[in-house]
């Protein structure tokens, strides 16, 4: 009657041996994936913090100070991205793409937000990627030695490549932040920024319309939010224009500087 004797997992059978190697392979892969997810989460948090920090430019006296602080924060983020790049040496980037894409998108959002505040223009994908080439110092750097397999690899620069899609998605989210910046600017009496922003957002919106639904699904999904953000910015400019019509332009600045004195701080950006 003992018909099924000895069948349970003879530990030295070929099947069990094979599965032991599978176990190892899967665990290795999964661990790497988890490390990347963790890095991505850290990058997301730090990038979000940078964005929050940057929003302060509309309310503080010293914009440069904020920018310097955000620069520091982004340098920290870049170091994390370098760790991702190190994990990916010799790997197929797309194999682990889902692990780090949220973080990278948020980084694109943060870095392009900073770029816009400084330069009033859209940072290019090339520029972003150029900033993610990390050149190793010959010896004493990087004592963690995350993947220093061979000696000659040390000389090659480690670099990370943001994919065009992640770039697009990050830029799409940027527009939401720009909309918030615009509303805050109006709220704080900055009368130039909103017009610049509407000009800029229209260009970005045109760009996205041009791509339309040929991009990945996530991009088309964001088009609607983008259009709403643009609408809010256009409405803000309209309101400024209409209200501004009741007073000559040179007096406006005057009004606002009086106002600024009241809230005990100098004028925002400009």
């Amino acid at each position, binding site marked *: 009657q003992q018909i099924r004797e000895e069948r349970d997992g003879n530990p030295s059978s070929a099947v069990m041996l094979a599965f032991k190697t599978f176990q190892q392979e899967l665990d290795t892969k999964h661990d790497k994936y988890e490390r990347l997810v963790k890095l991505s989460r850290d990058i997301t948090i730090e990038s979000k913090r940078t964005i929050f920090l940057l929003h302060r430019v509309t309310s503080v006296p010293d914009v440069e100070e904020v920018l310097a602080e955000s620069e520091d924060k982004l340098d920290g983020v870049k170091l994390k991205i370098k760790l991702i790049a190190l994990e990916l040496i010799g790997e197929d980037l797309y194999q682990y793409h889902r692990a780090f894409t949220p973080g990278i998108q948020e980084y694109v959002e943060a870095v392009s937000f900073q770029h816009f505040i400084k330069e009033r223009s859209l940072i290019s994908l090339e520029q972003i990627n150029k900033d993610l080439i990390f050149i190793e110092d010959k010896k004493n750097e990087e004592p963690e030695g995350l993947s220093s397999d061979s000696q000659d690899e040390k000389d090659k620069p480690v670099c990370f490549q943001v994919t065009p899609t992640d770039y697009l998605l990050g830029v799409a989210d940027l527009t939401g932040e720009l909309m*918030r910046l615009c*509303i805050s600017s*109006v*709220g704080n009496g900055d009368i130039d920024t909103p017009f610049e922003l509407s000009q800029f957002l229209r260009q970005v919106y045109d760009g996205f319309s041009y791509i339309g639904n040929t991009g990945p699904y996530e991009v088309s999904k964001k088009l609607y939010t983008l259009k709403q953000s643009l609408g809010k910015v256009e409405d803000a400019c309209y309101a400024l224009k209409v*209200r501004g019509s009741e007073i000559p332009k040179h007096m406006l600045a005057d009004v*606002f500087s009086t*106002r600024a004195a*009241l809230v005990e701080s100098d004028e925002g950006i400009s």
Partner: protein
Amino acid sequence: MSVNEMFSGIQGFLSADQDVREDIRKVVQGLEQTAREILTVLQSVHQASGFKDIPSKCQRGRELFCTVRSHLGDLKTKFPAEQYYRFHEHWRFVLQRLAFLAAFVVYLESETLVTREEVTQILGIEVNREKGFHLDIEDYLSGVLTMASELSRLAVNSVTAGDYSRPLRISNFINELDSGFRLLNLKNDPLRKRYDGLKYDVKKIEEVVYDLSIRGLAREPGSGGEE
């Protein structure tokens, strides 16, 4: 039979739980009713005539908060203190509303931001989770945000009522509030969404101040502020 006895006991537990929820629901209904009454009282400040007797309206609101305290006192007795979060959803909404009303009363009285401690005193509950029925920080913040949008409406109506200094004071207050919120790392949760609305309140108030400024109506912050 032993298993049967065990399950009879379990059924007792389950029934008790349903009864607790029923009890809570009833008290919460009463709370909502009182909250609506306070709202009616306080909202009358938006009316032209309302600006005159803000103090008496606040007085009336304060009285109604007695009823609130008695309801909340009742609520605490309906379930063991350590199971606050088990039933949180039942009273979360009304608690946020009460936090708003308390914040509004305090603002109307003293033009300051109510602290969480003050709200809990007004409601007769605890600040600290450990001590018992308390006010969650998210619920407090949500109440504060609701007040902010009430203030933007107040700024508009005070101009209509001829009070030109109040909008400036509101503007300063709201700006301070906005700076405060900017310190928070809000995730993409309901609070974040509500906070995004604050920017529009800031903007609206700023527009009122601007309208006053270009007409030279906003110069008297020192003098006529209290009207």
